[in-house]
């Protein structure tokens, strides 16, 4: 059993991290949503807010309690930091001998991700596996210089379905510390030695058995309240539905806007772009997020391989829920529900997966 401590106010941890010089990234309020950003002050941590999430709908509101962590995931995942939307890979400069290549040197200071939910922990691990196989060290370099303070969910949004993907709402591993908010304060679970050293000097008291039980009960409540669940056999059944007329019906509603892929914490596709400047002295290579929903994504000589919206939606969903298993050994979905909430057309991945696998 992991060591557990009791903490009254999570700001104590933040203050300690900030004083020790860590860059702390935590979900903060921005443009009406919770998004992970750099925290300058422990008081930046939002308190007492709830999220109302439904297909194509997200609102934050004042909660009835003064809890810290009842609002769950917002639109921008940790992916924005670990797999940035745009990055320069290298520059080439002309010189007397031809040209010289200058690789990009990234400044990634010692960082703490504060408030990572179980679904996103799973997503970080799954993206890490993708980039490991792609032999792209950038993601791993960032992860290895990052400590993770997870938060176990004591509440689920209506769009959450991590129980059915077995990725939450409790963080099982992949964290240094994990917090669970109870009515008696925060239960702090130590996941690694690095996590234990983050608590040094705080003088936290050991958590009581009673508090541990309260924490377990809150997580169980969050799990029990989930109303959405992916079908158990979706990985096997979805490819069998490849010719279903349902794909056309989805495509009629789908805006092909790429939002689902951008907010998905495991979607990893990028495009590579070369640029030159007017002086003809400098060239740059950039990587930026791409999406299988754009016609250009599958363009080869003569046109795109997947020319219809139905084909593109089928590709995304079938790869995410089925093809990932063959390719990476896990599902590409961690049940965070972002693709449902942030679809401007309110397309519900879970409902569509059910309809497609139940022969609708």
């Amino acid at each position, binding site marked *: 059993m992991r060591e557990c401590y009791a903490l009254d106010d999570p700001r104590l941890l933040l203050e300690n991290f900030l004083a020790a010089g860590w860059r702390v990234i935590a979900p903060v309020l921005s*443009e009406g949503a919770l998004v992970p950003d750099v925290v300058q002050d422990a008081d930046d941590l939002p308190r007492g807010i709830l999220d109302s999430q439904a297909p*194509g709908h997200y609102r934050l509101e004042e909660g009835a309690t003064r809890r810290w962590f009842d609002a769950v995931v917002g639109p921008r995942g940790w992916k924005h930091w670990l797999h940035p939307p745009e990055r320069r890979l290298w520059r080439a400069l002309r010189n007397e001998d031809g040209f010289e290549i200058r690789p990009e040197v990234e400044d990634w200071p010692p960082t703490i991700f504060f408030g990572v939910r179980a679904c996103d922990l799973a997503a970080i691990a799954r993206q890490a596996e993708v980039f490991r196989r792609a032999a792209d060290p950038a993601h791993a370099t960032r992860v290895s210089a990052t400590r993770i303070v997870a938060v176990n969910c004591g509440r689920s949004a209506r769009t959450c379905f991590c129980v059915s993907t077995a990725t939450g709402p409790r963080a099982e591993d992949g964290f240094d510390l994990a917090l669970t908010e109870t009515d008696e304060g925060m239960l702090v679970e130590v996941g690694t030695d690095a996590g234990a050293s983050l608590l040094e000097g705080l003088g936290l008291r050991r958590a009581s058995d009673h508090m541990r039980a309260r924490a377990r009960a809150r997580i169980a409540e969050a799990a029990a309240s989930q109303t959405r669940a992916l079908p158990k056999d979706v990985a096997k059944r979805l490819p069998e539905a490849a010719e279903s007329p349902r794909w056309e019906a989805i495509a009629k509603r789908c805006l092909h806007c*790429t939002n689902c892929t951008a907010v998905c914490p495991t979607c990893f596709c990028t495009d590579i*772009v070369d640029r030159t400047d*007017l002086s003809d002295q400098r060239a740059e290579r950039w990587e930026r997020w791409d999406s299988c929903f754009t016609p250009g994504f599958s363009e080869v000589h003569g046109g795109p391989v997947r020319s219809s919206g139905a084909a593109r939606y089928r590709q995304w969903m079938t790869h995410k829920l089925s093809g990932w298993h063959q390719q990476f050994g896990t599902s590409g979905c961690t049940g965070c529900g972002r693709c449902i909430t942030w679809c*401007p057309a309110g397309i519900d991945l879970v409902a569509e997966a059910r309809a497609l696998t139940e022969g609708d």
Partner: protein
Amino acid sequence: MGAPRIAIWKFASCDGCQLSLLDCEEALLELAGAVRISHFLEASSRVEAGPYDLSLVEGSITTAQDAVRIREIRAASARLVTIGACATAGGIQALRDTRDLDALKRSVYPDPALIEVLERSTPVSDHVAVDAELRGCPVSRRDLLELVAASLAGRRPDLPDVAQCAECKRAGTVCVMVATGTPCLGPVTRAGCGNLCPRIGRGCYGCFGPVEGANCAAMSAQLRDLGMTAGEIMALYRGFNAGAQPFAEEAARHE
């Protein structure tokens, strides 16, 4: 081989896209060093005869003289690139395409018989072959410089071809439609403006015109759900890119 010769032309337009070029500040000096600007009346009265390596064309074709002149420009240009919503979609002036032209003339001009215009305001591509188009009202400085740099290097320009949503998400802008219920044309509009409106909490007005494969019917269904009337939806599509086919058709469905 001398510096490539560039010409900038104006048809029916507000000059804003040409101003975007003049607005390139320090990059303008770099540009002037890399190319020879042979024809740019907005900037200089010095005019050199063609042929030109690259012509940038602003404005829509609205008169019979325009239709002749654009052919002459095409014939004198190795590459022709249209810049801005007027040249690529007919512009805001294409709003007149949806009304009776004579009635409009009478309502605006004291002597309507003097107004000699074509029946419709059309994009340059309706008249001559176009090698590339820069969208926007106005075009972005970044796209203009990228296009010229790519032309000089003989490579394909990196121009946005994704929906505005992709630009918002890359920038980390929170979706105004989902988070605040604000109607937004972002899902059917091509990226490139630098998500100017959503990043200050406003919905997209479609300045960069329809994205390839724009699903305007699904877009309108969402706009209705957000409380817009048919008239409001029609007006939203009838902006700077009113003449672009997907927007024009969707607006007509809401008349």
